[in-house]
C-alpha cells in the first residue's frame, strides 16, 4: 500500500484551473521530485495536500486515511511535515525555539501543566529540549541556537526550516524548493543533509525543485507539471530525454 495516495485531484481558483487530475502514489522511503516551469501549480499541489486549500475534486489519503477537510495542523500532526518556498520562519523567535515549538503535537501535559509547571511538564520539556539539541546538531544549526532566525545566513535559515519540519516527526516530508537562493557549497551540504534525513529517519520525501541537476541526483522518480497537468513521469533519465519536458523548458523549435 502506498504511504501517500493522491487520486484525480483537481482544483479551481474561481474559474482558473490550477491543478488538473493530479495523481501520486508515494511509497515508504521514496524520494520523488516534482519539476515544472514557474506558475505550473507545484506549490498549489503542496498546499492542497497539506490542507491549506481544499481540492475541488479528488482524494488524498495518508496511510489509507483521507486528509480532505482536515485542518493543516491535524494533517501535520498526522505525519506530513513541510517546508516553504519563501521561508516562513518566526522572526521574533530563536533557532532553538523554532525547533522546540514544532514538538507541539507530541506534548500531553495540557493547559494545567503549562500554567502551574507540574513535574510532568518539566519532564516533557526536558525531553523536547534533548531532541531539539539533537536535531539542531544534525542540521548544523546548533551553533546558532540562541540567535534570532533573521540574523542567520540564508542557507542556515533553510536548514532551520528543515529541522523544524523534522521535529514534527513526519512520515512524509514535503520540501518546497529546498535549495532556492543557495550558494554552490550550501547546495552540496543540502544534498548531504537530505540524504542523511532520508537514511536516518526513513521518511518519504516529495520535493519541488528548479535545479534539474539537484533533482536528477536525489530523486528516484520525477513528475513534470505544466499548466497544472502532469505531462511526464519517470526515472531521471527518462525525464531528461522526454521531448515534452524539453519543449516545456526550452520551447519548441520552430521550422520556417
Amino acid at each position, binding site marked *: 500500500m502506498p504511504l501517500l495516495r493522491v487520486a484525480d485531484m483537481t482544483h479551481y481558483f474561481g474559474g482558473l484551473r490550477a491543478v488538473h487530475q493530479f495523481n501520486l502514489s508515494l511509497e515508504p522511503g521514496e524520494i520523488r521530485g516534482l519539476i515544472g516551469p514557474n506558475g505550473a501549480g507545484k506549490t498549489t499541489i503542496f498546499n492542497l495536500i497539506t490542507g491549506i486549500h481544499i481540492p475541488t475534486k479528488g482524494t488524498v489519503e495518508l496511510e489509507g486515511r483521507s486528509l480532505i477537510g482536515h485542518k493543516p495542523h491535524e494533517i501535520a500532526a498526522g505525519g506530513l511535515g513541510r517546508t516553504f518556498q519563501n521561508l516562513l520562519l518566526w522572526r521574533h523567535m530563536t533557532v532553538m525555539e523554532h525547533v522546540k515549538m514544532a514538538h507541539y503535537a507530541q506534548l500531553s501535559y495540557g493547559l494545567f501543566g503549562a500554567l*502551574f509547571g507540574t513535574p510532568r511538564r518539566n519532564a516533557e520539556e526536558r525531553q*523536547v529540549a534533548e531532541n531539539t539539541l539533537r536535531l539542531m546538531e544534525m542540521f548544523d544549526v546548533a551553533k546558532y541556537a540562541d540567535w534570532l532566525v533573521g540574523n542567520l545566513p540564508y542557507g542556515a535559515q533553510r536548514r532551520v526550516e528543515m529541522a523544524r519540519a523534522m521535529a514534527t516527526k513526519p512520515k512524509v516530508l514535503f520540501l518546497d524548493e529546498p535549495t532556492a537562493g543557495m550558494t554552490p557549497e550550501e547546495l552540496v551540504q543540502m544534498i548531504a543533509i537530505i540524504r542523511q534525513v532520508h537514511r536516518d529517519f526513513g521518511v518519504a520525501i516529495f520535493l519541488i525543485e528548479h535545479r534539474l541537476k539537484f533533482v536528477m541526483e536525489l530523486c528516484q522518480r520525477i513528475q513534470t507539471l505544466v499548466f497544472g497537468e502532469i505531462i511526464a513521469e519517470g526515472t531521471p533519465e527518462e525525464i531528461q530525454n522526454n521531448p515534452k519536458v524539453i519543449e516545456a523548458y526550452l520551447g519548441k523549435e520552430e521550422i520556417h
Partner: protein
Amino acid sequence: MEATELQAQALPSRTRRIRAAFAQVPALGWLAGILCTVLIEHLWGDPLSYQLYLPKLPVLFGCLIMFKQPVLIPSVLAYVALIYAIPIAAVTLLTRRLANAVASQLSRLPLWLSGLIHLGLLYLALYYWADLSDYRELVLKLTMIAVILTLSINLINGYMGEFSCSHPGFMALGAYGASIVTLLLFTNDRMFGEALLPEALGPWCFPLALIIGGFVASAGALIVAIPSFRTRGDYLAIISLAFMFIVKSLIENVEWVGGPRGMSSQPNWSTLPVVFSWMVICIWVINNFVRSIYGKALNAVRDNEIAADAMTVDTRKTKMVAFLLGAFWAGVAGGLFAHVMRFVNPGTFGIQRLAEILAMVYFGGLNSVVGSIFGAVSINLISEMLRPLEIYKWIVIPLILILVMIYRPTGLISFREFDVRKILQPKQQKD
C-alpha cells in the same frame, strides 16, 4: 596637558569601578538594602523631615512637595539622599560579599523555597514602606493591580500580537462579578439585603469570589473571541473596543447592580498581603505559560500563522486559550480593584482606563514579563508623582510615551525572558 588627559582617563575608569562594584550586588543584597532604608525611614523619617522644615514625611520621594513648594526642593533632595540613596548604596556595597555568600547558599535550595524567601523580604520592605501612610498603601495596591492588568494584556497584545482594546470591559466584568458574590453572601447591605453566610467566613472565600469574577470576564472574552478570531488585525481592535462600550452601557442600564451609580460598601478584603500574593501568583502563572511550548506556540501564531499551522499548532485553540487567560486575570484584577476602592461604577472602566493600560504595556515592553512589571510600576508611579500638575499630567505622560514609541517601538524592555533562577543567583566573580 598631560594631567588633564590623565584625569579624563581616570574619570571613566572610576565610574566603571563603581558600576562594577554595583554589578556584583545580588538580588538578595538589593532587597537587604531596600529593607534597611525602609527601616531607617521608619525610625528617623519623621524627625528628619521636621529638621529639614518639610511639612510632613515626603510620601512619594517628595515629588508632591517639590511641585507645590519649589523652595523646599533642597530639603527634599537632602531627605531622599539621607534616607534612601546613601543607605541603599552603603548597605548593598558593604554587604555584597556576605549577600553573595548567602545567595549562593540559597541557590542550593529548591527554587521555590529560595524564591519564597526573596519574596518574603520584598514583602517586608513594601509593608514597612506602606506602613507610614495610607496614601502609600493605596498607591502600592493600585500599582500591584496594574501589574496584573499589564501582564494580562501583554499576553494578548504582546505575546499573541493582536491589538485588543477590551481590557477595561473584562476588568469591569471581574469587578462586578466579585463584588456581587461578596455583597450577596457576606455583607448586610441595601442592595442585596442580609448576608447569606457568616461574615467571618468572608476573607477565606474571597479568593473564590475573585476567581468567579475572573471566569465571568473569561465568559465575556469568549463572546468577543468567537466572531473576531475569524478576522485579524484592525478588526479585532474594533470589535474589542465595541465590546468595552457594550459592557459599560450594559452595566449602566442594569438597575439591580446600581446602574450608573455603581456599587459600594464592598468589604475591605483587598489588604496588602492579599493583593501582593495575587500579583505573585499572576506573575508566576503567566511566566510559566509563556515559557512553555504552548506559550511559544502563541509567538509562532503571531509571527506567522500559516507556518505555525503547518508545524502542528492548533492556532485557533492557542489564540483562544491566551485570550481567555488574559481576560481571566483582568477579571481578577478588577475584583481586587473593586475591593480596594470599595466602590465601583461603570464610569471607571471607560476609555481613560484603556489608555492607561495600553500606556503601561507599550511603555514597559511587549512580549516580556519584566517589561510589564516595569511598565506598570513606572507609569503608575510617574502618574502619581505628577499629580500636582493636574491636567498637564496628561501632556507629560503621552509625551513620554511618544518618545518611547519613536526610539523603542516595542517598549523599553521587550522580548526578554523572565528567568527567576538567573535573577536570584549570586553575582560575585570568582577571583
